[in-house]
């Protein structure tokens, strides 16, 4: 018998009945804010079922065509394939394939009842968050009114993302799928007073007005030549609406986030020939996504790190360029500190400031029970999306400052659930549970209902329009999308993480067959211990603490436990194939994410019910 203190420190058998356990195994789905069922849609693409794949996507992320081009892709850094052979599956680009190749879908969306339920919802801003709220609430009979200050819907997707990355037709198509199903869309209608809006008798209000204020750079010379110093997001908006069509030859972009990448590439298309992105931080710490930087560099844009802006240089009130401090960084007490080494002048005809943006609510009165924190950001509950005033909900960048489209979509889903509960007088803090279904994929001897052979192919690269062609028109989309042949290869790179290795401890005879056959040394039969000790005793180093260990119940013959380190499992199914007693089975997990419209027939509902 072990001494009680030690016994208590032994790892407890993993609770696989909790839906999160197998959900976490599907790294991409777990990392996606909207929990898109990635492996399943990739499988549908592999089967040529593009429309089904699109609808499955749409159920969770609402804008597959848009997100398949410009998503921040939190799924890809999480993808297991990246741990096994360096490059993740091109999940985002495969999403675009579903949008490119889909058939008719309008008839498969959940029907919008002609008989309304009598509740009226106001959404402020026609961006991705508000559109998601509308999408989720329309099938329930709500009357949705969207107020938009611009003359076209889309929010930052239209104003801040250049057309060469996101064609306007793609954008408009997916917006129309929502707005043309009975939304009252009021364009050119900015809300100037929340108080006035609240007095109009809406049953709930959703604020999805984004983070529309670009940060400024208060250094000497900032306001001396306003025609040639621009705020990034405002400038992109003017370009999107055709108000600005040209820029000087030499352009400096200040800041190195994704907005900076859009600004520099847009400049090239408006006549600039020498564009430099000036970053304060070293290259490894820049905010822009790696792929956006790669694409900028492909267009010969120079990214210059460790240059902090000092002042604007002018002659006769005309911008000549900018002085920078060249800085060096070192770590001190866990904080990054900089010291100035030198300074340097860079000439420029135009300078674009892309150093961040924030949400701003000059139109919300501060005496209506809607609290703001010290940073002047509204207090919003992360779970319900409700503000401190009952019936007023926030989502997207308006809620917690700039995040990204896929987060805004998730906010929209949660806000829709809250609004539906709120309008029925239910407690919105009680959230509908996430459920999990498991179905065996065993078809017969040596037969499994998924493609379990490991394809050694490397990640496919999306073809781009040639450098000689792409600058001719700002509307020419640079990425051409995967070819059919590329798609065929890329789908097979997916490791099917949703086909779970499910272990039944009572059936195990401890013959070691699974352990011996596992190609990536994930399994170990071990005497139980504390986590750190156990991780050190596994067949292969289990150093990735982000990946939980699976620990079985003690086994009948020796009392040891079966331990699985999920980190590099390729879900090939050989453990189940070699198991003489079916103690291992490969089972398809289906995470059931709740939506406001649950119970209504519609997108993907067939797939959800059939348990695929």
């Amino acid at each position: 018998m072990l001494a009680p203190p030690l016994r208590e420190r032994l790892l407890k058998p993993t609770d696989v009945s909790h839906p999160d356990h197998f959900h976490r195994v599907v790294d991409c789905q777990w990392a996606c804010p909207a929990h898109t069922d990635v492996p399943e849609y990739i499988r549908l693409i592999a089967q040529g079922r593009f429309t089904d794949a699109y609808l499955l996507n749409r159920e969770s992320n609402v804008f597959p065509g848009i997100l398949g081009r410009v998503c921040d892709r939190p799924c890809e850094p999480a993808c297991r394939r990246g741990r096994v052979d360096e490059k993740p599956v091109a999940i985002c680009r495969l999403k675009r394939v579903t949008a490119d190749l889909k058939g008719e879908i309008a008839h498969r969306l959940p029907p919008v009842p002609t008989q309304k339920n009598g509740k009226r919802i106001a959404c402020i801003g026609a961006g991705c968050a508000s559109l998601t709220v509308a999408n989720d609430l329309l099938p329930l009979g709500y009357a949705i009114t969207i107020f938009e200050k611009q003359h076209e819907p889309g929010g930052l997707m239209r104003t801040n993302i250049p057309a060469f990355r996101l064609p306007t037709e793609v954008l408009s198509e997916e917006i129309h799928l929502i707005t043309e199903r009975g939304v009252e869309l009021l364009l050119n209608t900015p809300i100037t007073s929340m108080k006035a809006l609240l007095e109009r008798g809406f049953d709930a209000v959703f604020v999805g007005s984004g983070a529309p204020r670009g940060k400024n750079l208060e250094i000497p010379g900032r306001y001396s030549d306003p025609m040639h110093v621009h705020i990034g997001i405002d400038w992109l908006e003017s370009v999107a609406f055709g108000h600005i069509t040209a820029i000087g030859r030499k352009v400096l972009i200040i800041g190195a986030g994704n907005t900076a990448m859009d600004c520099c590439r847009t400049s090239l298309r408006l006549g600039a020939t020498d564009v430099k992105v000036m970053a304060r931080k070293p290259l490894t710490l820049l905010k822009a996504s790696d792929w956006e930087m790669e694409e900028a560099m492909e267009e010969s844009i120079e990214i210059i790190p460790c240059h902090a802006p000092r002042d604007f240089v002018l002659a006769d009130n005309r911008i000549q360029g900018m002085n920078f401090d060249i800085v060096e960084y070192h770590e001190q007490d866990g904080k990054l500190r900089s010291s100035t080494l030198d300074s340097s002048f860079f000439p420029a005809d135009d300078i674009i400031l892309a150093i961040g943006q924030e949400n701003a609510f000059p139109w919300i009165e501060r005496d209506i029970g809607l609290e703001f924190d010290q940073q002047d950001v509204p207090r919003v509950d992360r779970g319900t999306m409700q503000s401190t005033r009952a019936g007023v909900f926030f989502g997207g960048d308006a809620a917690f400052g700039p995040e990204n489209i896929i987060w805004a979509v998730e906010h929209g889903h949660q806000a829709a659930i809250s609004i539906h509960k709120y309008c029925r007088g239910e407690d919105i803090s009680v959230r509908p549970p996430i459920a999990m279904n498991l179905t065996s994929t065993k078809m017969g001897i040596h037969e499994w209902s998924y493609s379990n052979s490991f394809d050694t192919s490397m990640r496919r690269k999306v073809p781009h329009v040639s450098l000689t062609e792409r600058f001719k028109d700002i509307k020419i989309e640079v990425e051409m999308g995967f070819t059919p042949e590329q798609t065929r290869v890329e789908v097979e790179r997916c490791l099917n993480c949703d086909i779970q290795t499910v272990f039944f401890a009572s059936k195990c005879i401890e013959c070691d067959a699974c352990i011996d056959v596992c190609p990536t040394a994930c399994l170990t039969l071990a005497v139980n211990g504390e986590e750190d000790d156990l991780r050190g005793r596994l067949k292969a180093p289990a150093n990735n603490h982000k990946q939980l260990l699976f620990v079985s119940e003690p086994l009948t013959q020796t009392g040891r436990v079966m331990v699985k380190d999920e980190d590099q499992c390729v879900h090939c199914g050989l453990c189940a194939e070699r198991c003489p007693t079916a103690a291992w089975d490969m089972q398809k997990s289906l995470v059931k994410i709740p939506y406001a419209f649950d119970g209504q027939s519609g997108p993907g509902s067939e797939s959800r019910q059939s348990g695929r």
Partner: protein
Amino acid sequence: MTFMQKPKVSHSKLPRNELGLSIRDYEGSMSTLCAGCGHDSVTAALIQAIWELSIEPHLIVKMSGIGCSSKTPAYFVEGAHGINAVHGRMPSIATGANAANRNLYYIGISGDGDSLSIGLGQFAHALRRNVNMLYLIENNGVYGLTKGQFSASADVGSKAKKGAVNNQPPIDPILLALTLGAGFVGRGFSGDKDQLVPLIKAGILHNGFALLDVLSPCVTFNDHEDSTKSYAHTRRFDRPAVRTDFVPRKTPIQTVCEGGEAIPVELHDGSTIVLRKVSKDYNPVNRDEAYRYVQEHQKGGEIVTGLLYINEDQQEFHALNDTVSGALRDLPYAELCPGSAILEEIQHLYR
């Protein structure tokens, strides 16, 4: 049987041995034995041991006869030499090969049928000649390839899958080997790799004939309740008499020997095995005591495992026969084949 191929992908942080090879580099082709067969675990233990010893694959010769066990050589170290001999005749082939090239590592894999029935004579004589090899018997008490008849190692009273009872006394390879004078006698269990891997390493490096009897349950024909060779039965009656730690060359053994009653035995290549008694009245360097201990426990139905007897001082095959020091292929042709005049002289000596 598995039709699926083991994918080429491996764990990205798999450790490498002295040769820079990962354990995956020591695999063979995919096993076609029944799922859960003990033999596959023995294969995995062999791969593990050979990888840990950092033996170059081309210096290994794997040999076998006929039977489920004899398929094993196909499943480990793809880059090694190998031969699949006639039923029970592997010891002769191994003896011949070893006579021709003494510089290789010989690993013979056999079964209870191949060694204790049809090949018993061959087995006994290879042992008696002290051929420098690891002779590993995958022992499951049945003829699996012919659908599960009792083999010569089946225990009295053991029941076959369909209920027939065995009444003939078993041949125990351990007692037999001790009687015949083997210098290395060990028993392991396919379900206990912690014990088996060091036994295999010691057996490969032992200078002479190393017998390893490995209980390796037949999951299809002999893993039921009334079987005495099942996983459950073996685990229940397994009585390790001695624990074996393998200490590679150049590693100070003091750290391993601390405390307890430990007997270090230096092997031919400079590495050491440290034997630790589990049972107080057991002595792994005394043949008579080892014999008595194993036999006494066997009467009670217990299975004694571990490195049961070792003697590194016995002369192996080449020393006994005063052969040339290197491999025959390294001899100059004139020396290897001195011509008909010399042959005539030799023949004259016998007239």
